[in-house]
Each structure stands twice: as structure tokens, then as C-alpha cells.
């Protein structure tokens, strides 16, 4: 005999630590089993796409910091690449390498945070996060040396990067590269071979490769399901075509595999940075664009206003969360006619209902953590 209880609605969020921001989940339960899940978003909606239509192309770069504020380097990169594609600008090689290095440092920082918060969701309250934040702090120090900011970096420019790295940057980065493998081994011990985490994450929130592709899931979630699709490999941008690295792929498509993929990607990022630091050429870091001026310190000022030709461009990159795309339509004016962000955090939430139905409330928290979404990018 099965006992059927009255459906019961549980509201998770908008103020709840497991929602990683202001995001609300309405779960309908039958006993402890989830029978329906509805996402309520928009608490952090800042209408960025409308605001961007009123500002010049250069003025829009700081907006891209504030979409995915945990990985603002990649937001910058995708946006400037879309404008460069629209205008047909070639970027100097040193700038390409700097972009690659910064994007990979950002990936390590962002994945460390994802892993720490995941342990948090599993019940290891705050201690793992602080472990992960040690490395993240050091990466933020490197960003601070390069551009003066730690979170909202505003480092990329249309045609290059804002300034060259100082002389002491490379030794400090190399020292960090030497320290990190030891740390990564520590995390693997701490997380992947942890009995509690294995029990909480194995076989939970499974997406088959077909389901993942049909639901437009990208990034570590897609690769965790066993699809070897990485924009860095498939459609190389910046300097990724000159660098040797592997795509980390999972097999089961569950929460556990997504984190295995993230840990493996952190090791690959390290490998990419080491190679890039070795072969990075000298030279300018900014293409001179119209009336652009280069200051004595090497800092270049992009012209505030320029007019790309009429047309449209869609550029995409592999951000820590997945495929981050910018779609820009130009009417020949000084600001975009349409500015759209293909936000991986937002689109990766599409199969949440599919993953959550049949699971328990405790599983739903872990599944939500495995999506690794940033609410700033979900709501924009």
C-alpha cells in the first residue's frame, strides 16, 4: 500500500544561503519527494540590456563586470570580442595571451568558489569555503596588480587590454602556479574522496548527454554528462589555438561528475597559464583604434565614442559557467541597437525541474549548487 499525502509547497529563498544570492525556488512536495519545482527570478534584474542601448560601446564594458560578478574577466572578454567581430579589429598577440592568462586565472578563482560553496551546501559549514578562498585571494591580488581592481575588473578593452602587466607580475604568478598543484591535491582529498560528499552527490541530478544538449546546457554541466564540447577547443579564441590542453569530461552526468570536471579543469587551467607565461611575446597590448591614445605608462585609452558599421555579431567564449555569448546589433550609431547576453547561468537552470522531480529537498539544494549559477548573470 502506498501512502499519498497532500501536496505541500516549500519556499526556498529568496534569502537563503543555498540559493547563492536572491533567487527563489518553489518546491511542491509529496512527502519528502519533489513533484514540481518552479523558479522565481528577477530579484536582481537591473535591465542591463536596456541600459546598454543608451551607452557607448566603451561605456558598456563595466556592465559586463557586473553580470557574472564572480568571473568578471570572462564577461569583459566575451563582450569586447563581440564588438571586435562587429568592427573587424585584429588584436595584438601579447594582448591575446594576456586575455588567455587572465581568463584562466578567473576560471581557477571561480571554480574554487564553486567547490567551496558546494561543500557548504553539503553541510560543511564555511570551513571549506575559507580554504578555497586562500587561493582565490591570491588570484585577486594578481588582478589587482594588473588592473587595480579585485572584483569588477574592467580590464579588457575593445582592441586589447587596458594596460600591460607590471614587471613583478610574472614572478608572482609563477610562484602561485608552483603552490597550486599541492592545494588541488588537498581539495581532491577533501572533497572527492569524502564519504559524505560521495553519498550526497553520486547519482543525484542526472542529465543524460541527449537531455543536456537538448536543454542547451553548457560548460562543466554539459561536460559532466559526457559531451566533450568546449568552445576553447571547438572554436579557439584569444591564444587558445597556440596552447595544448585537454577537455575534462565526466561519465555519469550527476552532481559528483560536475565537480570532478571542475577540479580537472582547474588543473588544465594551470597548465594553460604555465604555457602561456612561457611563450607570451612582447609588443603592444592594444590596437590603436581611431583616436585611441597610448599613455607613457603603456595604458591605452580607447576612444569613448566610435561607430561600428551596420550589422550584427554573436561572439561566444567558454566562461567558468559555460558558453557565454554576446549578441550585438549595430545600427551604425555610437551605442548598440540591441545588446543581448547569452548567460550560461540562466540557461543552465532550464533543466532544473527535470533534475529535481523525484529528488528530495536536500538533493535539490545540492543540484542547485552543482549548476553553479551567479544570480547577477541569471537576472542581468
Amino acid at each position, binding site marked *: 500500500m502506498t501512502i499519498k499525502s497532500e501536496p505541500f509547497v516549500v519556499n526556498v529563498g529568496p534569502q537563503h544561503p543555498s540559493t547563492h544570492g536572491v533567487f527563489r525556488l518553489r518546491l511542491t512536495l509529496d512527502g519528502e519527494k519533489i513533484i514540481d519545482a518552479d523558479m522565481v527570478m528577477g530579484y536582481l534584474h537591473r535591465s542591463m540590456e*536596456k541600459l546598454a542601448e*543608451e551607452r557607448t560601446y566603451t561605456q558598456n564594458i563595466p556592465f559586463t563586470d557586473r553580470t557574472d560578478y564572480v568571473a568578471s574577466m570572462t564577461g569583459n572578454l566575451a563582450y569586447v570580442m563581440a564588438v571586435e567581430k562587429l568592427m573587424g579589429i585584429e588584436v595584438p598577440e601579447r594582448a591575446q595571451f594576456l586575455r588567455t592568462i587572465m581568463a584562466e586565472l578567473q576560471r581557477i578563482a571561480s571554480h574554487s568558489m564553486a567547490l567551496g560553496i558546494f561543500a557548504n551546501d553539503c553541510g560543511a559549514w564555511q570551513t571549506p569555503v575559507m580554504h578555497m578562498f586562500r587561493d582565490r585571494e591570491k588570484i585577486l591580488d594578481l588582478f589587482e596588480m594588473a588592473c587595480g581592481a579585485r572584483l569588477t575588473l574592467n580590464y579588457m578593452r575593445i582592441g586589447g587590454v587596458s594596460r600591460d602587466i607590471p614587471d613583478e607580475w610574472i614572478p608572482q604568478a609563477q610562484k602561485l602556479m608552483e603552490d597550486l598543484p599541492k592545494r588541488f591535491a588537498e581539495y581532491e582529498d577533501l572533497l572527492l574522496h569524502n564519504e559524505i560528499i560521495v553519498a550526497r552527490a553520486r547519482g543525484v541530478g542526472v542529465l543524460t548527454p541527449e537531455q543536456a544538449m537538448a536543454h542547451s546546457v553548457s560548460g562543466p554541466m554539459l561536460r559532466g554528462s559526457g559531451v566533450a564540447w568546449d568552445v576553447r577547443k571547438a572554436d579557439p579564441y584569444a591564444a587558445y589555438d597556440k596552447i595544448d590542453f585537454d577537455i575534462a569530461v565526466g561519465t555519469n552526468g550527476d552532481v559528483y561528475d560536475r565537480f570532478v570536471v571542475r577540479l580537472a579543469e582547474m588543473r588544465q587551467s594551470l597548465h594553460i597559464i604555465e604555457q602561456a607565461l612561457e611563450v607570451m611575446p612582447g609588443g603592444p597590448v592594444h590596437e590603436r583604434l581611431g583616436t585611441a591614445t597610448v599613455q607613457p605608462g603603456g595604458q591605452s585609452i580607447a576612444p569613448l565614442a566610435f561607430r561600428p558599421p551596420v550589422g550584427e555579431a554573436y561572439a561566444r567564449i567558454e566562461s567558468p559557467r559555460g558558453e557565454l555569448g554576446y549578441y550585438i546589433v549595430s545600427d551604425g550609431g555610437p551605442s548598440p541597437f540591441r545588446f543581448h547576453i547569452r548567460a550560461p547561468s540562466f540557461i543552465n537552470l532550464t533543466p532544473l525541474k527535470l533534475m529535481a522531480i523525484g529528488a528530495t529537498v536536500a538533493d535539490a539544494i545540492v543540484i542547485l549548487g552543482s549548476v553553479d549559477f551567479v544570480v547577477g548573470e541569471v537576472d542581468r
Partner: protein
Amino acid sequence: MTTHVTGIEIAHLIDGQFPDAVQDAQPEFAAVKPESLVQVLTWLRDDSDQAYEFLSSLTGVDRIQWFEVAYHLESIKHNRAATIKVRAGDRENPVVPSAVPVWPGAQLQEREAYDLLGIVFEGNPDLRRIFLWDGFAGFPLRKDYLNLPGGQMPGLERFPGEPGVELSGRGTE
């Protein structure tokens, strides 16, 4: 390296399969008539030579004369990318067919386009506002949003200009 299939090429392929389905072809995209959209998208997904199994992005654009929805498609199998568009000419009630039956990944993105641009996706199983609340007046990403008669949102008619000053900008043309 991803092969970016031009709109002209993809338009020829679609034309060979579905005569009369293509409305316009530009180097960046191919525009398809709304009535044949779902057929064309299903064929692009299922045909083994096309195999666009991944809908990268779906978004709407207000072109003033018409609304359009852009589908950025990717074939993971062949490492190819293509752009398909569909147009809705009626400004009062723009309707296009939903792509959710073809790619479930379109669900949230169609809700976003409905919320911000007011494009109705016929056949979407759950078309509700997503970022803005129910009862929000108007669709903010439309180019005429700030010209709502009398200003449907309190105070909105004074933004960004001062009271009594004519608004300028593309939205007002």
C-alpha cells in the same frame, strides 16, 4: 575551428528542402517564414548532414518595422554554427511559433523574450513573465517603451529628460 555557415548557404539548403520557406537571406542569417519555422528547425536538428542539436541562444530584437527572433544554432557533431531568424510584423501582437518542441532549452529564453519584448511564442507550455512581475505595464526592451501614452509607469515619462523636455533618442523616432 567552428565553421560558421553563412545565411546564404543555409538559405539554399532550406530552400532545397522546403521551397517558399525562406523569407530573406543575408551573410549573417537566413530569415524563415513563421508558418514553416518549426518544420525547418526540426529538419535542421534531425537531418544527419545538419545536426544542429544545440540551440546556443534565442533572443528577440525590436527592428521597429518588425520584431525578429534570432536562433543561434550549433552542431556539436559537425562543429558548425548558423543563425536562423523569424519575423513578426504586427507590432500590436507579435506572434511566432515556439521552438520548445524542438529544443526544450528554448523554454526560459522564450519567457525572457516575452517578458522584455512582448513577443508571444505560440505553443510554449509555460509563457509567463520571468524577470518582471505580473502586471508590469509595457515591455521595456521595445524601442517605443519610453513613449507610452501618458506614461504608464509612474514617473517614467520624466526619465531620462527633465519635466516638459522632449525626449530624444532612437526610441522616440
